């Protein structure tokens, strides 16, 4: 029984450290922009998540369906605000940048 508890604990630790590592990977060239997007529904959210995640240089994404906000963190050498707006439009949504933070460090804090 004890060994089982250890295994559970170790696996939990591995997953937590994986998560921590993913969240600490930020560098100088990242930029965080919040877009107001014309999404109205869960499925729109899913479409956006599934597609925008694969835009070049994408680092992080947070979607707030109720406020219709999509916050993206991306590598400025690989993409830009304009390109991302284009990507939203390609999916059939309108997007407008409403907030813009260079080198935001604490994007994951709520």
């Amino acid at each position: 029984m004890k060994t089982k508890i250890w295994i559970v604990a170790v696996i939990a630790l591995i997953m937590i450290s994986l998560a921590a590592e993913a969240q600490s990977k930020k560098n100088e060239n990242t930029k965080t922009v919040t877009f107001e997007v014309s999404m109205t529904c869960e499925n729109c959210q899913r479409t956006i998540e599934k597609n925008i995640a694969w835009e070049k240089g994408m680092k992080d994404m947070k979607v707030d369906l109720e406020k219709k906000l999509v916050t993206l963190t991306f590598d400025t050498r690989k993409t830009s605000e304009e390109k991302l707006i284009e990507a939203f439009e390609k999916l059939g949504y309108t997007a407008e940048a409403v907030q813009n933070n260079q080198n935001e460090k604490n994007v994951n804090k709520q």
Partner: protein
Amino acid sequence: MKKQLILLFLVSFSSVSFAQVHGIIKDNAGQGIPGAHIHWLGTDVGTLSDESGHFIISQPNDANTLIFSSVGFASDTVNVAGKNNIDQVNVILDDHTELAELTVTQRRSGKYVNRLAVQNMETLNTNELRKAACCNLSESFTTNPSVDVSYSDAATGAKQIKLLGLSGSYVQMLTENIPNLRGLSSAYGMGYIPGPWMESIQISKGTASVKTGYEAIAGQINVEYKKPQNSDRVSLNIFTNSVGRTEFNADAAVKLSDSLATSVMLHASDDYMTPDDNGDGYRDLPRIRQYNLANRWFYQKDNYILQAFVRGLSENRTGGKTDNSYKIGINTERYELFVKNGFLFGGDEHDEEGHQHDQEHEHNHEHNLSSLGIILNGTIHNQDAVYGAKKYDGRQNNLYLNVIYDREMGEHHKFSAGTSFNMDTYDEILTLGNTQNFTRTEYVPGAFAEYTVTYKDLTAMAGLRADYNTLYGTFVTPRFHVRYNIKDRAHLRVSAGKGYRTPNILAENNFLLASNRVINIGENLKQEEAWNFGATAHVFIPVWGGKELALMGEWFYTNFINQVVVDMDSNPHAAGFYNLNGKSYSSSLQFEANLEVFRGFTATLAHRINDVKVTVMGRLREKPLNNRSKSLITFTYETPLKKWQFDYTAQFNGGGRMPDPDASNPLWENEFKPFNIMNAQVTRNFRTWSVYAGAENITNFMQHHPIIDVQNPFGDNFDASMVWGPMHGRTFYAGLRWALTKK
């Protein structure tokens, strides 16, 4: 040739464009809202959402604002003017008894309890179903604390589901809200629904709504298949594992016109090897070859919706000794057809324009809707089975009709009534030396009514049905559910109700022929009858970072008035079936905690205690081969862009009692010990496809000698039914999913 034809069929599909909008209406918990009203502002074009909240509506040229409304929810409008390429509009309606500041969580877990339903209903969606990627309905509950799935025996691969510690025959199985997997198909039916076909699963504990019949005693499990009107255009799934299982799934959906959509789902699976890891000369698992093909249609015009589904299944199981000196062979053919018609009335009497956000207006005018559903279902099931020298051939035909009329009377009252008819014919031939033939036909006409009333934070639902069974006469099924919300922080529910079922001894227990127990079926078996009582409390506690800790406590008590007792104790060489004489109950207490610990990382802890006792030969005894407790831990981590997903599940199964062994020559223990099972899976998503790999039973725990007197399959002691644990050890698997999503 067949395959080529299917391919040709898939390739010839093409998409036609049209002015039509479709989508899903959901509540805050993400559950689809059935029967919600949708119409274009300023027109008389309107429709209602189906059972899962889906809708399709044609768009008139001059219409651009959609109004969504449903009882108990705040109405919402969506303006689609000037938005090209939007053919999908999905809406979340707020329950207006909830606080306004409730936020939509960023990453909803794949499993949730509907906070708004009167009943205690848990939904597993595709996110949850993909956490354990293998293979069919029987594996869908690996990450679920409420439902147990175990092998019925060590030879046939039949799987049995348990809810509240009660066997699967007391759980009403539904597909698309139509009773299914009853009688003959209950033994192997958990394998008849391929994983990739499923859109979601709803689990209700306790007696459910009377609309779907009287058979739910421990609970109800409903499977929703993927729908042609909102599925991916084409999707593929390939799976294989280290013990030889290979599965292939393909499906395609296409819209043929404004109002017509169809889809085809195909499944093929086989085992390319059947290992014998414990070296007892028997295949650890049988070879199961299955072909499964379904076609479904969706048609909607004005206030009429038609859904049709047809499927054919062919399955071949081969188990027993690897040298075939003792062979188990089960061949099954099954055909299913259902047609659902929905008519909507009285939804078109809106008059004014420009009231986009005038909710009062909506509520005053949009709650006198009614609908009529006519559901027709037919099933043919044919099974030929050989267990060594024994033979069992069974055929079951089922015809089912259910007519449901729903009416909303203002905002706080809902009334449903209807009538149903069920016919089952069984034709069974059992050969154990001599040949016996059992035939039975059962007709059950019935009628039901259900009333739901909402007063402030209290919702109550009362249902009553009366049925006449040609074998057992008339019987009445009352059911009650009450829900009370304390703001959005706590939800309390109580339920009480009755359930009945006809025992089908051979059909449901024919896997027992994989033992040499003599089967003694008592005379005049009565219809099974039970009361079920339940009380549940769900509490949502705000913690750090806007996250919410969900705590649940549930207690369900089932008390049998009549039951067919399965007696494996009185004689270790026999299985007896006779009417209950005394007490029989199940008490199940469960606690669960869910929390997104930090962004992307979700943990679930659950613990359940079962106390299941039944009177066997005058003595109240613990039900054998039943775990006294079960704990479950699951961790899920998804990276911020959802490109990687890690899932881990640990099950801690409590010990239990074994059927009494032979007193003079005990061949097994009196008890089985607790054991643990761990599974893990990694998924990597790409834009259109994903790969997954995982391991089941990581610690390699096995019940090492599951077959009693394995050397003498034709001797008196041979028994493959003394199964309580896993029969195969650590298994690795990998698979691939690809989907062409629709634009």
